[in-house]
């Protein structure tokens, strides 16, 4: 049994495609397209959820102005690097 058309390398001068499962190219193309479109949909949903969470966090901390003030204070104290 072999997954490809190659059963020896003696007649290499006549070989065409040598990847496994020759004949499934159309199926592979459909699967590839689905993977691509699926990735965009998944990423978009994830990004939207992430933004929603970020905005909630920002508001919980008192809004963008407060977050920036806190950040500036933290940097002045330099507590992160110590």
């Amino acid at each position, binding site marked *: 049994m072999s997954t490809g058309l190659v059963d020896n390398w003696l007649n290499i001068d006549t*070989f065409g495609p040598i990847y496994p499962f*020759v004949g499934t190219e159309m199926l592979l*193309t459909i699967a590839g397209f689905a993977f*691509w479109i699926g990735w965009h949909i998944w990423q978009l949903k994830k*990004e939207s959820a992430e*933004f929603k969470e*970020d905005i909630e966090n920002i508001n919980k901390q008192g809004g963008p102005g407060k977050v920036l003030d806190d950040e500036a204070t933290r940097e002045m104290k330099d507590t992160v690097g110590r």
Partner: protein
Amino acid sequence: MDNELTALGIIFTEFYYWVTVVFMFLIHVGFCMYEVGASRYKNHTHTLMKNTMLIPLVTITFFFFGWWIYFAFVNGPWIIGDLVAAPFATPWSELMGTHMGGAPIQDTLTSDDTAFWARINGVFWAAFLLFSWTAASIVSGAVIERIRPSAFWILAVVIGSFTWIIDASWGWSWNGWMVQKLGYHDAYASGVIHAIAGGFALGVLLVLGPRIGKFRADGTPRNINPHNPWLVTIGLFLIYTGFWGFYVACNIPIIDVYGPAMLDVAGKTFFSATNIYLQPTTLSAITFNFLMSLSGGLMVAYIVSNGDAFWTYSGGLAGVIGASSGNDLYHPIQAMLIGGGGAFLAYKMHYWVEAKFKIDDAVGAVAVHGYAGFYGVVMAGFMLWGYPSSPFEGYATISPWGNFIGALIMFFVLGFFPALIVSKILHSFGMLRIPREIEMVGLDINHESIRAMEAEEVALAIRAEANGSA
């Protein structure tokens, strides 16, 4: 592959394009460094990932349809003819996989197809693909710090695997309709990569709007300086380096100009490198002109920007881009002067457009690529007026009007308008721009908060350990 000379010619060509791909990778490294250097601290991770992830997305879509478009759309389609069959470039073609060049399995292919494309298809595809990354990456810099990554990646696929490759099919192939009918000449892609990408970036920017704080209440612009100018300049140096691969990839390394695959003149043989239009050229010529146009751009940009590092480096790039259309044929001093003009135009236009139209182009991409690219195509029309645009009979000659129409097609028809339409669609769904609160505090707020907490925890642990052992 049954004799040494044929094998050498084929494997040399295969290796030649492979090397160009490796060089062109540096363009992307440069763009990533450049963008991160230009962005502010709290946007670094998202800025980097935005540009990085265009690599896989444009790659797979260029495999799925970009490569096929290049061969299939040379007639428009339906501008001067129908779609052209390109069975070696469809994603389901056996020639888009590992192939030894023997008889085909698929009945849409011939033995000539397999013998010719088996070793060249992947490397030739990759050389074009790296141009696709560049086109998308040019847009990426202009829109930093406020575009949603998801929106950018959709736009990257639109330019990287669709609109730019249509323009390459039309104006950057030996038989494209623009070459045949307009005499369009753009040997090293002033228009087909740079003008289109600049126009595309402008279309996105118009809908996206400026970064918060970019303009004062009276409408005058504030400078948002690069976070790390040294990273920006090293990035631009790397782009210069990658540009060598870009130039060389625009050539066909060795072909018998009189052979049956080309002019088919009996009894004559002349092996040469050619440009993409199959007109003979030499690596020597483009080496002269690349360096001289780079020099012209650097020198003029240094003067007009008062020695500003960011604009001097960008001006070097604008110099090369401004001369690229005709750098296969120009004299090196012509290339230098034309390159200088490209840098001058890019610098002046950037600030004029920014002040006049309130366009916030974060890295000057529209100017350096778009305006200098447009100018480069137009200049080549004048400089090479009357030259044949192709070695084949029946093609229009190079002319100012042919190249001017070509520049309009590149910048507006395939760059600006598609970007404007797609951006407006994304905007109408609220998918184009990041939420205002997040823009104000920075896209990386979550990453940074987590990193700060983790660093603090580690610092506390070390302190506890130190106190315990004291």
